[in-house]
């Protein structure tokens, strides 16, 4: 089992979220973690998809670690 907190990209048990129009990483973090400031966790888990935490697009499927 991995010791770090970053789930592998191919982990089928990592929850996913389909980005809706108007959403931000902070809003998504609040939904899943109850704390908007934890958006960086989602950003770090999706560095292969995201280059800027402020730029997410509807339809993107984000991993929620």
């Amino acid at each position, binding site marked *: *089992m*991995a010791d770090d*907190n*970053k*789930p*592998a990209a191919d*982990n*089928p*048990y*990592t*929850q*996913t*979220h*389909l980005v809706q129009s108007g959403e931000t990483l902070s809003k998504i973090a*609040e*939904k*899943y*973690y*109850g*704390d908007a*400031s*934890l958006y960086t*966790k989602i950003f770090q888990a999706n560095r292969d998809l995201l280059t800027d935490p402020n730029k997410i697009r509807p339809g993107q499927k984000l991993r929620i*670690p």
Partner: protein
Amino acid sequence: MKKPALLVLATLAAVLVAGCQNQRAPAEQAVAAAESSLTNIRDAASHYAPDQLQQVDAQLNSAKDSLAKGDYKGVLASMPALNTAIANLRDTATAKQQEADAANAKAKDAWGPMSTDVPKMVDAISSRVDILSKSHHLPHGVTKDSLASAKSAVDSMKSAWSDASNAASSGDYATAVSKGQGVRDQASQVMQSLGMTSS
């Protein structure tokens, strides 16, 4: 008693003693052979048919007692039943061992995907628990208690998974799969309690 009568009695006694002595070697050999047969299957029998082994041991010990008391005729008379009991024990142990081997082979097949699948479940939970532990407010549906339970569950799942892996390493796939399934079930419950089951 007259001398002829004494002579007859002495002769009869001598014949009887000689007869008994004639049966001593066959009786000793029969007991030794039975003991050897039982030794050959003792390990398997003690594992797969311990109760039946106990009964056969009792029969063998009875034969050895008779041998020690010089009851060679009794020993030889008990041998067919003892040998049959040993043969039955061998059949039972062999059949049960074959069943266990087949079950273990089936479990080995199940262990393959399980060994990669379950750790991913636990990793996903562990990651979520670590993040939620840093959260100032828990998300809807997750309570402090459920988070505390999840934290505790991660430790117990890792421990149980270690046991399962060790069992697999030693070739005991039936135990490995049984323990692994327990971890999988627990992981499913924890994921549900943390709201990780829906996207």
